[in-house]
């Protein structure tokens, strides 16, 4: 037998993994690994055929297979059972008392005691003195006496009211947790379960936004109910709420909503006012921008984007006359003087003065005569505009005079007496507002400086005042003294229209930010009331001449008629009550009502809309 002891020592044998040898023998020669070319099949066959396969182990040091002897196998068995390796070792030998446990009178050894057992120990002394010193210095404290008071006792035995401090009165107790509703039941009524869509919506919501912090679920019986996985979370969140949430006492408003509605006089008591749509004036093919009614109330004139001006009989809705003017009509105004039959029409850069030749022949004849009786002054004065007499062709249509401006004209409005009229030019300069006198064919520019984009102008019905509305302010000028008397702050972003109460002390302003501001000129320069009735921009506002009514037309297609009573008593504030919402106009191009106007004598209101109609409500 050859001695194949390996000399590499106790090393991990993996180090030799990649080599053909596995170590060195005593002579320093390489020990080669036994040739192993057995595959799985060979292994299996060997396992099946070799009866000693179970006792064959591989020697890690040499790589050779070794068959264990019977003794070795026995040893392994014993060790596996937890017995001693040596067969002959008896762990349960009877104990032998070498020294008796009883104390005998004679010592076991007769050796004399040490000297050190008689003298005090120096080391101990050192230690003790250290401890004594530490105790003296108070570094070591005696063990605390055990607290033997009961843990729980009657804490509230002596409740004295003095112990309730101010703190307790200030204390806001934490609100209790919300009590569970039906939907939290393990077996809720079926209507509380979420449908598929609701569940999906629930899942997509942020956890903080969810109304329920769980999905309602139904279980057939109690034993099927699982543990709630977020139980600890919820307790923890409650803890966080308790010590992290600021607490506040919130006063809950406990009002009956009906009490909030103001008590207004009933509209029925405030009659008359227009309530129903009576007539529709059809004929225009495009939006009707402007309306005007004759002082007698018999005729109505409307100007439209289809470049025509139409004259209607109010009572019959009959179109009496159509006047093509060759441009978009921005504004029309009937002369308020009943003895003069004249209409001012804004067409592009000019204002046409038209005699409609309607009604009393004497009347319109007189008007023509009045216009013809003009004698030009000797010396030519420089004017901001040109007054041109109409050509024959135009004359036959009714046009009498043309006032040519330098820029497009936006608005024209008559003075109450019917001689003067003002026009607004869309311009940035001081030439925006011009005042014309018809009888003298004379125009003047009242302002030296521009104060912003002028939206509309208005004459005071009685006094020599002139109102100019720019985007955000309304300026009131005294024409006689030629000075600014007042500046009204509208609190609106962009004023669209303005109307004055026949009494002359109150003004309403409509604005494109859907507000209507009522000014009491005696009261303040700020609005007495801001009415937000419309949903969209206001296009036009109007006052009635006699009745305490005013109306506003808006882009939302409605006309709102309000009762606006002004009292002669200066102490009493005006009473504003909305009385009727009139609907009828169809929204076209996002525009609804473009102009509203009251009949001069009757409680009727006209409105013109973007749908090309004019409507009369009575």
């Amino acid at each position, binding site marked *: 037998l050859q001695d194949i002891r390996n000399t590499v020592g106790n090393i991990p044998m993996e180090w030799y993994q990649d080599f053909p040898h596995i170590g060195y023998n005593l002579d320093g020669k390489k020990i080669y690994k036994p040739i192993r070319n057995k595959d799985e099949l060979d292994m299996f066959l060997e396992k099946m055929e070799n009866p000693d396969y179970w006792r064959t182990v591989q020697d890690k040091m040499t790589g050779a297979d070794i068959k264990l002897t019977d003794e070795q196998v026995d040893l392994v068995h014993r060790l596996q059972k937890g017995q001693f390796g040596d067969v002959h070792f008896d762990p349960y030998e009877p104990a032998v008392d070498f020294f008796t446990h009883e104390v005998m009178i004679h010592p076991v050894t007769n050796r004399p005691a040490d000297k050190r057992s008689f003298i005090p120990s120096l080391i101990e002394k050192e230690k003790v003195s250290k401890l004594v010193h530490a105790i003296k210095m108070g570094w070591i404290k005696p063990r605390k006496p055990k607290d033997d008071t009961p843990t729980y006792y009657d804490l*509230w035995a002596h409740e004295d009211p003095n112990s*309730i401090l101010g703190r*307790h009165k200030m204390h806001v107790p934490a609100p209790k947790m919300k009590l*569970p509703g039906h939907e*939290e039941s393990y077996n809720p*009524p079926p*209507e509380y379960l979420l449908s598929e869509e609701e569940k999906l919506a629930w899942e997509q919501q942020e956890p903080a936004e969810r109304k329920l912090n769980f999905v309602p679920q139904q279980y057939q019986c109690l034993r099927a109910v699982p543990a709630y996985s977020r139980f600890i979370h919820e307790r923890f969140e409650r803890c966080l709420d308790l010590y992290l949430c600021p607490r506040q006492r919130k006063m809950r408003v406990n*009002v009956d909503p009906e009490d*909030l509605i103001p008590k207004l006089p009933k509209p029925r008591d405030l009659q008359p006012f227009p309530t129903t749509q009576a007539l529709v004036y059809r004929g225009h093919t495009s939006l009707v921008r402007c309306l005007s009614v004759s002082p007698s109330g018999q005729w109505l004139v409307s100007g439209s984007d289809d470049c025509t001006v139409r004259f209607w009989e109010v009572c019959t809705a009959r179109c009496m006359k159509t006047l093509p003017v060759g441009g978009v009509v921005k504004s029309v105004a009937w002369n308020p003087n009943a003895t003069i039959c004249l209409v001012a029409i804004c067409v592009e850069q000019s204002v046409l003065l038209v005699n409609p030749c309607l009604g009393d022949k004497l009347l319109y004849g007189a008007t023509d005569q009045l216009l013809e009786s003009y004698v030009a002054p000797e010396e030519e004065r420089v004017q901001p505009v040109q007054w041109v007499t109409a050509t024959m062709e135009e004359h036959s249509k009714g046009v009498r005079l043309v006032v040519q401006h330098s820029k497009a004209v936006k608005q024209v409005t008559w003075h109450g007496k019917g001689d003067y009229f003002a026009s607004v030019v869309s311009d940035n300069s001081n030439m925006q507002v011009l005042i014309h006198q018809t009888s003298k064919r004379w125009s003047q520019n009242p302002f030296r400086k521009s104060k912003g984009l002028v939206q509309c102008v208005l004459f005071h019905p009685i006094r020599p005042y002139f109102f100019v509305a720019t985007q955000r302010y309304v300026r009131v000028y005294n024409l006689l003294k030629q000075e600014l008397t007042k500046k009204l702050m509208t609190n609106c972003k962009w004023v669209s229209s303005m109307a004055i109460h026949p009494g002359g002390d109150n003004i309403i302003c409509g604005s494109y930010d859907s507000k209507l501001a009522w000014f009491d000129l005696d009261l303040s320069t700020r609005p007495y009331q801001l009415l937000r009735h419309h949903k969209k921009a206001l296009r036009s506002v109007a006052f009635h001449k006699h009745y305490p009514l005013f109306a506003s037309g808006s882009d939302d297609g409605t006309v709102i008629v309000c009762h606006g009573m002004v009292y002669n008593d200066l102490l009493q504030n005006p009473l504003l009550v909305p009385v009727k*919402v009139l609907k009828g106009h169809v929204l076209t191009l996002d525009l609804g009502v473009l102009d509203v106007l009251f009949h001069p004598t009757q409680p009727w209101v006209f409105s013109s809309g973007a749908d090309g109609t004019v409507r009369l409500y009575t």
Partner: protein
Amino acid sequence: MGGLEKKKYERGSATNYITRNRARKKLQLSLPDFRRLCILKGIYPHEPKHKKKVNKGSTAARTFYLLKDIKFLLHEPIVNKFREYKVFVRKLRKAYGKSEWSTVDRLKDNKPSYKLDHIVKERYPTFVDALRDLDDALSMCFLFSTFPRSGKCHVQTIQLCRRLAVEFLNYVIVSRSLRKVFLSIKGIYYQAEVLGQPVTWITPYAFAHDHPTDVDYRVMATFTEFYTTLLGFVNFRLYQSLNLLYPPKIDGQADVELKPAEGKEYAMDSESYLEKLSALSASLARAVAPTHEDEVEMDEFPVEGETAEQLDARKKEQEALEKHKKLFEGLRFFLNREVPREPLAFIIRCFGGQVSWDKSLCIGATYDVSDPSITHQIVDRPRVERQVVGRYYLQPQWVFDSVNAKLCLPVADYFPGVLLPPHLSPFVTEQEGDYVPPEKLKLLAMQRGENPDEESEEEEEEEEEEEEEDDNDKEEEEEDESEKEEEMKLKKLEEQKTQSSKALPVKVTAGKVRLEDKQRLEQEQQSEEKRLAIMMMKKREKYLYKKIMFGKKRKVREANKLAAKRKAHDTAVKEEKKKSKKAR
């Protein structure tokens, strides 16, 4: 002019508040210690009215405390204890590091400890205050008592929580103060009326928790520390009020019964004490022997300004309450091993019933399954193999529903394997306009003493017969009807709205068509008037009004939605029934 320049933020609200960090610095505490102190003392942050002013012009998000609160904390003796503890930990660590074991022992002997008694007294100057705040304390203790005795917190805390919870349950049993119970998917809610205060708590279902990692157990442990102290004192006081011994002792004779008959020792007495107590089956020993003369009829002291009707109603209520307390009196229950023993035993005992369970399930079983006197056996399995004659086999929901209904419900709906009726929350009190599930209506009718069951069944049968005759027509009709109904409902609502403000006596005489038209016109006019009046509201009032109306509308919408859902469900169920019938 003249005088010193006024500096900003040196007066006014800026001086009343202090940020958390500054408060911490003022108290010289670390953040965890500060948090603990705030929890123990019940100090919470405040939201200043003008945050920017208080924040010295900055808009950064900060937590503010009232300066007064922080000054109040300065005088707290616990703060010193915190500091001592910190020092103790430092010394201990040092001793460990140097392996000075004797020092370690010595230090451990002198470990600083603190008591929270004075804080409890200070936070709740009267006992009623403490009772009002008991909800969270109970829920927390019940949760902690279910924690495993490893890891998350000290074993002592868990044991203490368990003890206190069990003591409280025993008190509720003895005082019979349980009022409502609710099986939710989160756990079981209980509501007891303790000395006139409603106390609600929730216990989780008895399963192992999977402990979430995003929860700070230190915070919870601090809360529990306070709550255990509070609950201990409350328990003491409650036991005292009933003349019971505290800590509770099991009544002598019951104790004998409880001992296993075979003479086999179950466990040491000290160990089994809590288990016996938590079995909830034994009565407790009283400090003073109860005398029956105690239950003297209460004299009546009519409160001034109270009418006879009110007095009567109160008396009736009192009687109902007494009856409710004795709901299960005389009934003997047996709990099968698959039903949750503790909640059921607790509830049944609270209402005077006797209860037992399998002996191998828990200590404290008083009688066996085979006992012939058992009236109800609570079972939660699809079917029972061998049924004993003379007792009802019921699902556990019956107990809960009966307690909530304040009467023993008919048992037929709750037999094993039967589809259970919905379990409703007893905490919901429906106001007018809210959605009321039909089961609740039925229950209310039953409580009033009517028996709606028979009628409805008859009706159903009739309906079914009819349905078989003309199926399609009926459906259409139903749809029409439902639409009409909705319209009517809307109309009614409108009417109510308009009439509530005006209360116009609208008269309708029969046979005249035009009158109705008039009525409608009038209504329209009124609604228009209202609309116009709303236009004239002030901005702020309008906002408020719109908000209120929005809330009301939402409520109606939600109720309608639930009703519609229910209707759809019912029709679906009916269809299915019919189909199965036809198939047969």
